[in-house]
């Protein structure tokens, strides 16, 4: 079994056999997925209008119904009424429910940021009291971090907690904003600073406590059925036993919960995307213009193919990382760590990849829904047809769980921090790439076996990232963290590299499993994606280098970028046709 660690994808090779691919779901996992799907078909899809009009009591009752099926407690330990399934199975549930529009947001806010702080940081008494009821949604949960003046800069909140004189309560005062499920939740995890603390602490606050009140529902662009309110605390009286973990640990809690939330967001995005493609291709097959279904036209096929490629790439990356995290958790447990700490540590190790997936997932979703609207033409702009809602609902994903800007900065920041701490040897390999630049280029031709070439290209993409990141770090040193344009370029290069390698490994494994001749569309997806991102990596690399390097060094590195992103001529039109035709034939996303 591979023991790849977080961030190591840039400096280590992964073998195809060591990654998890969705073609390996077992019967039980598929049955769980079917249950989630049936739930959406029965309870959510027929009621989207009612949900979006915020019909009183509807969303809470849907959460309760999902709770009764066990959908909210898949990953909760058995002792608290859950099913203790592993990390990938939990992700599958997130994926399927992710197609549920506003319901998906309420679902993941409840079972993710709502429940997890207590599950992972609560003491036994707190867990005994809250988790079984959260597992069934008898109590609904929400998470109060953001404030009017404190969004991306989450540690800057002004909400205060003061210990009462008798030492039995904290009085919390402050204002929280954008609180998902806030309108109906019973339990709020509230972040506030005790006294004059610099760091946040976290508290479990019940709806019934004195001094808590709520603003009106926000009027939003999308996910209109998801409750989002301001929550006001005015000397809200919270028993001291409701402090979560320890004083000053709140920011750590918030960050770790966000790490999980980010990769989960990518999972939910994936579910939404698959539905988006289904809708797009159904319409393209139904709608005729100039005497033929529009799915016969190259321009439309290009869109369908590109939707499929991007979603397949996202899925490959998501489940590769999800299983890597699962393996890390198991390894830590085998080393004697308890489950909760192993889980938090495992996820933290892959925080870079989680941020990569957050960005990738939300941006693929926007691409898919945007082109979906385009395929629908005028009907795409009609509120009577489904793409309107899909398009509006998708947009939030680039904003919450850390904006994509913040996540891009984090990708590079976390990689460099790991390198500084000696956890990840980026500098060694980066130096090697620098040496390679001044030596005679490697003219050896890759072999002709499946993906021999593509593997070499991906290795070269890694070299591009190492070269640009290494040289930027050397040149700019401490100021690099402020050079956001450059960081963004490097982050993009890392995202495309991770995604390209993931899809390559998946199809390599799949070809062994099913035979190369049975996966020719998937092979075409790998080739098209790599061909595409080679140019994008080239451009981002050039932009970065031109922004900080000069003279001979710049010239040499520009040559390096050119060399490392060079790929053979390839016919993308034919490849996309092959990919699209299968989706069109099957009239659904079928990869």
């Amino acid at each position, binding site marked *: 079994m591979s023991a790849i660690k977080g961030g190591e994808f840039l400096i280590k090779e992964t073998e195809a056999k060591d990654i998890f691919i969705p073609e390996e779901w077992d019967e039980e996992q598929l049955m769980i997925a079917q249950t989630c799907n049936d739930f959406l078909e029965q309870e959510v899809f027929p009621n989207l209008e009612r949900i979006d009009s915020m019909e009183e009591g509807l969303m809470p009752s849907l959460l309760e119904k999902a709770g*009764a*099926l066990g959908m909210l407690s898949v990953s909760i330990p058995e002792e608290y009424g859950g*099913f203790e399934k592993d990390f990938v199975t939990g992700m599958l549930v997130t994926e399927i429910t992710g197609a549920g529009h506003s319901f998906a947001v309420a679902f993941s806010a409840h079972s993710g940021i709502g429940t997890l702080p207590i599950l992972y940081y609560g003491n036994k008494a707190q867990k005994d009291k809250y988790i079984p009821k959260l597992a069934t949604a008898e109590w609904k949960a929400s998470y109060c971090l953001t404030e009017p003046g404190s969004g991306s800069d989450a540690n800057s909140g002004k909400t205060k907690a003061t210990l009462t004189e008798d030492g039995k309560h904290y009085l919390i005062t402050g204002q929280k904003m954008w609180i998902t499920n806030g309108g109906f939740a019973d339990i709020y995890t509230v972040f506030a600073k005790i006294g004059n603390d610099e760091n946040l602490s976290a508290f479990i606050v019940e709806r019934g406590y004195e001094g808590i009140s709520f603003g009106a529902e926000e009027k939003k662009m999308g996910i209109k059925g998801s409750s989002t309110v301001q929550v006001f605390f005015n000397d809200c009286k919270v028993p001291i036993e409701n402090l979560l973990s320890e004083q000053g640990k709140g920011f750590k809690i918030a960050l770790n919960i966000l790490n999980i939330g980010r990769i989960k967001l990518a999972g939910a995005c994936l579910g939404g995307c698959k539905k988006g493609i289904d809708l797009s291709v159904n319409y393209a097959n139904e709608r005729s213009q100039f005497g033929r279904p529009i799915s016969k036209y190259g321009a439309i096929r290009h869109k369908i193919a590109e939707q499929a490629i991007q979603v397949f790439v996202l899925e490959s990356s998501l489940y590769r990382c999800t299983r890597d995290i699962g393996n890390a958790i198991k390894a830590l447990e085998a080393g004697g760590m308890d489950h909760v700490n192993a889980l938090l540590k495992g996820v933290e190790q892959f925080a870079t990849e989680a941020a990569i997936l957050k960005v990738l997932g939300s941006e693929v979703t926007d691409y898919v829904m945007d082109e979906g609207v385009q395929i629908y033409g005028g009907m795409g702009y009609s509120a009577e047809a489904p793409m309107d809602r899909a398009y509006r609902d998708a947009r939030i994903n680039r904003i919450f769980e850390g904006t994509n800007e913040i996540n891009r900065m984090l990708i590079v920041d976390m990689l460099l921090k790991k390198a500084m701490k000696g956890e990840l040897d980026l500098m060694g390999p980066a130096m090697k790439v620098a040496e390679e630049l001044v030596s005679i280029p490697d003219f050896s031709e890759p072999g002709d076996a499946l993906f021999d070439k593509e593997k070499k290209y991906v290795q070269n993409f890694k070299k591009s990232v190492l070269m640009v990141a290494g040289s930027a770090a050397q040149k700019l040193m401490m100021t690099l963290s402020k050079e956001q344009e450059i960081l963004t370029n490097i982050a993009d290069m890392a995202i495309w590299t991770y995604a390209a390698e993931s899809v390559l490994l998946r199809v390599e494994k799949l070809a062994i499993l099913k035979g190369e001749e049975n996966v020719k569309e998937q092979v075409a997806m790998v080739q098209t994606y790599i061909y595409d991102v080679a140019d994008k990596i080239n451009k981002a690399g050039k932009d970065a280098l031109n922004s900080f390097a000069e003279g001979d060094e710049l010239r040499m590195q520009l040559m390096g970028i050119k060399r490392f992103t060079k790929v053979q001529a390839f016919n993308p039109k034919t490849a996309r046709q092959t990919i699209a035709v299968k989706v069109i*034939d*099957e009239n659904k996303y079928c990869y």
Partner: protein
Amino acid sequence: MKILVCISKAPDTTSKILFTDENTKFNETGVQFIVNPYDEWYALVRGLELKEQMGGTVTVIAVGGAENDPIIRKALAIGADDAIRIDAEALDAFAVAQEISNYVSDKSYDLILCGKETISYNGAQVPGLIAEFMDIAFASQAIKLEINGTIATIECDVQGGTEVLEANLPIVLSVAKGMAEQRIPNMRGIMAARTKKLEVMPGSGATNNCEVVGYSLPAAKSGCKYIDPDNAEELISLLRNEAKAI
């Protein structure tokens, strides 16, 4: 109450239908199978409801190879207590009904529930044949079922209305929409399905008495024809001569 529910696999409704062996066999490769919805949503769920009301057991039975096990375990996940698979090829309705009745004849089930038909072959023969082979009462297209002691009161769909029947148990029913509502298996059920008993029995050597000579697909849909609103004559002529609808 000892209740037996007969289940069959059926291709998912989005499956592509293709044939092999010179169009005499349905090509199952790549097809996603589900529990036939009439069996699952109505027969099985009503069986479970009756068990919940009156106590007893619900056993599911299927005839066919190991490829049926996933749909059998789905039925167990929904709530059946145990399952039997008769390991014989489902040659035709006659053979399937024979296999089931041969197995069941000495097991004294009070109630045998079947879906009214599969959504794939729409044969609607198995339940009637089982009743015939076992020489017990049969009602078809049942949409309501109540049990009082040893008497079953059954409401059936008949053309333009309903018919109410009473019969002594044991009885075989073919059930239709209205009998119950789909139950989504919950996590607990799904996890329990793995440990419930699924007994595989050899077939009793039933034979078919029909052979498939060929399958064909309906002609591909042709495009729409637009007719001028003033031109009723052409419309009538097309409906009569081309579509043969009037």
